[in-house]
């Protein structure tokens, strides 16, 4: 990697290191360490990116990366051996590169998997390439390519948890972690994931090594830097929730700033840093557009969260035990619940009951 960075000024280089630190949520103290790691790196790490039951949305989101840019990543940071959406080669020539990388870069390459893995009918619902005139299933590629990989990253909710395609029972779509029992998989969920989540994990892997990356994962295998707290906890509309003020009619401009719970918001159950990070060069995010969070980073998405535009039947707020209730507003009850720690079930029942009876102030369910 040092060869690549030779061309740019020290000042630019340190700026680049600082932007990487910022993306990972690290203080400026880490800049010299990042600079050292980049300078010490020899050659570029090979990456193999394979697509299964995907829509390519994860690829497209990844190339929306702001800093480092897509060009920085593709040409300067990693060596992309196989990635269908951008690679020059096609057909047997492309499959040969995939095979060669698996053999020749054993233990060195990062495997990125986009899309769910259909396992019904011996993988027939997704084939990629062929050998001796017979199609090769995506399932076989995932198994084969993971064996020699240095690290396996599942990008997107489909490869992390099954996602939308797993709602079809006929294709038996599994997440990568289930197909590869025993192999550690880093999940970068999201439908699609924010580019920083993937690029941040990648940079962390390159800079600090696999052990460090795998150490800081949540229960669903996701980097805690990005998936550490709920949308709800950091939502700028949180005070409207606590005040029991909910958006019910999209057409009414006076409601446009209110809490989206009644429009199906899954923010209380969804762990991601969207409220602080925002999307598309920091321009906006789902709740910023008055739309509910659909919980697209969660294992429940899509089937477990359907119907998406209906209020959640109960709101489970993890890590809470014991309760004390005296407030009469539903929002306030839930607000205190989070702070003081109320039993999850109880909160759910109260929330449903209160809102079912008509809720405070806003006068009834939609």
């Amino acid at each position, binding site marked *: 990697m040092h060869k690549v960075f030779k061309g740019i000024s020290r000042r630019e280089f340190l700026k680049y290191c600082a932007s990487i630190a910022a993306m990972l949520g690290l203080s400026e103290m880490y800049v010299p360490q990042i600079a050292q790691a980049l300078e010490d790196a020899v050659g570029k790490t090979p990456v193999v990116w394979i697509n299964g039951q995907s829509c390519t949305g994860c690829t497209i989101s990844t190339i929306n990366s702001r800093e480092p840019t897509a060009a920085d990543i593709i040409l300067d940071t990693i060596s992309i051996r196989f990635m269908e959406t951008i690679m020059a080669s096609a057909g047997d*020539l492309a499959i040969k590169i995939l095979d060669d990388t698996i053999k020749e870069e054993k233990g060195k390459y990062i495997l990125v998997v986009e899309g769910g893995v259909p396992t019904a009918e011996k993988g027939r619902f997704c084939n990629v390439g062929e050998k001796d005139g017979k199609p090769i299933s995506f399932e076989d590629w995932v198994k084969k390519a993971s064996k020699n990989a240095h690290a396996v990253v599942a990008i997107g909710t489909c490869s992390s948890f099954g996602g939308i395609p797993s709602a079809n029972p006929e294709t038996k779509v599994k997440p990568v972690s289930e197909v590869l029992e025993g192999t550690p998989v880093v999940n970068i969920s999201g439908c699609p994931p924010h580019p920083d989540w993937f690029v941040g994990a990648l940079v962390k892997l390159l800079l600090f090594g696999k052990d460090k990356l795998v150490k800081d994962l949540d229960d669903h295998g996701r980097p805690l830097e990005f998936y550490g707290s709920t949308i709800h906890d950091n939502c700028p509309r949180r005070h409207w929730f606590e005040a029991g003020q909910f958006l019910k009619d999209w057409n009414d*401009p006076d409601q446009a700033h209110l809490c989206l719970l009644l429009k199906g918001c899954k923010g209380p159950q969804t762990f991601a840093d969207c409220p602080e990070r925002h999307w*598309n*060069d920091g321009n*906006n995010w789902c709740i910023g557009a008055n739309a509910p969070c659909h919980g697209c980073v969660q294992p429940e998405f899509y089937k477990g969260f359907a119907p998406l535009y209906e209020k959640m039947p109960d709101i489970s707020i993890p890590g809470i035990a014991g309760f004390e209730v005296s407030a009469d507003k539903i929002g306030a009850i839930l607000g205190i619940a989070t702070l003081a720690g109320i039993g999850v079930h109880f909160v759910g029942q109260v929330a449903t009951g209160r809102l079912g009876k008509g809720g405070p102030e806003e006068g009834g369910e939609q």
Partner: protein
Amino acid sequence: MAEKVVIDPVTRIEGHLKIEVEIEDGKVKDAWSTASMARGFEILLKGKDPRDAQVVCERICGVCPAAHGMAASQNLDEAFGAEVPANARIIRNLIVGANFIQSHILHFYHLQALDYLDVTAVAKYQGNDPALVTVKDKIVKLVQANDTFPLTPRYDPDEFSVNDPDIVALAVAHYLQALEMRKKAHAMLSIFGGRMPSYVSSVPGGVTVHPTIDMIAAFKSYLKEFVDIENDDRGFIKDVYYTDVLTLATGPLLPLGTLGVGKAHGNFMSFGMFDLEKSGDYKNRFLPSGIIKDGELSEVRDLNPDKLAEDVKYSWYTEDCGGRHPSDGRTEFELDKKSAYSFSKAPRYDGKPVEVGPLARMLVKKDKTLLDLAAKHNIEPTGALARTAARAIECLLVAKAMHEWLDELTQNLKAGVVDICDDKEVPSSGKGMGLVEAPRGSLGHFVEIEGKKTKNYQAVPATIWNASPRDAKGIRGPIEESLIDTPVPDPKNPNNIVRIVRSFDP
């Protein structure tokens, strides 16, 4: 003696496609197009809340979620009996318009260009344009490090691989610039869409966003980088994208255009796009709807949605799924079907395969820029090169029109028009049809609601039209047909095959 060549996977597309051709005497004699992946959206939406289709269907395609969102919205608008307010119609147009720009730029530079550029020629660049010298240094460094992935390996360059160092250096610089510009198109979209890919602000009956003058100004400032209508339409689309397309099409690639490589049946269809007055009215759109048959470019017929039907004789679905209008469509897999070779059904209009996409839209519109360009340079107006040119021409047209839509929105706000959503309950029953145009062609969504749930949902995306297998009569799909007679002098390096397939932006 015919030789079989299989290209699997066809890369630089969205999705999974396999192309098989039979070559005789250096030319393609026959061709088969295979969609090799199926998720079954129609199956997984059954029994769900109909509103979910908006969110779920955007994930059919990560390159064009905006178009799927629009198709789902208009489909559900109709089924819900909602009257979409003017501001919602305009905001939806702006969202989809922004993604047309994103998708067309992505297609030309990042999906298609490597078919025509011999990137290694950059190393021979002798000029002193600082930007191009930087690009040259970048590529030279990769070569020196013996690591030119993912630009190599590739098929060996042929007579249509451009190797003029000045042209290639500029094109590679633009490839990198285009990465940033397509990202900006998404950033522009997110102002009204919330985020992208998979925007969130469209719902049955309208949108969730109340537009403000600030948002319009921010959108306009992005749009000006693509096209500035107050400054002779300067901007990335005209000065870079369209100029590059013209340089290639009228220069080194002209022989491909003159030969008419990549012609399909000469049937074209457009559902029309960007509603001008009433939302969902395919008869009154900025890009008009219409049908062209048998290459008669001067005669554009009215679209009649009753004439849509899908065949499945060569598709992995039960026979019961065949011969139906998509509003009454079925999705039942049959993987052991002897005749079948694709997960794509074979949609037909009035019993005929039709090509869809920017070329179809520009021909249906009788676009003067495209027809004049073709006539002046003797480029076959229905071939692969015309497809690429039509995409760039359309990109500029749509971007310019978006300025007008922003002005219309501003005037509405000034006049106190604030409605954005006819926010309706899920109906107990209803039927809908959403016919729109995605960047890559005609896209239809169809829904039937019963007991407040989705009873049947069918989506017929653009690439299903173009990449369709043969129909019940044995007639090839448009991509299959477009490959017939294509010169393939070296079957190990079938450059022309992938060029033609990618010209459809599958």
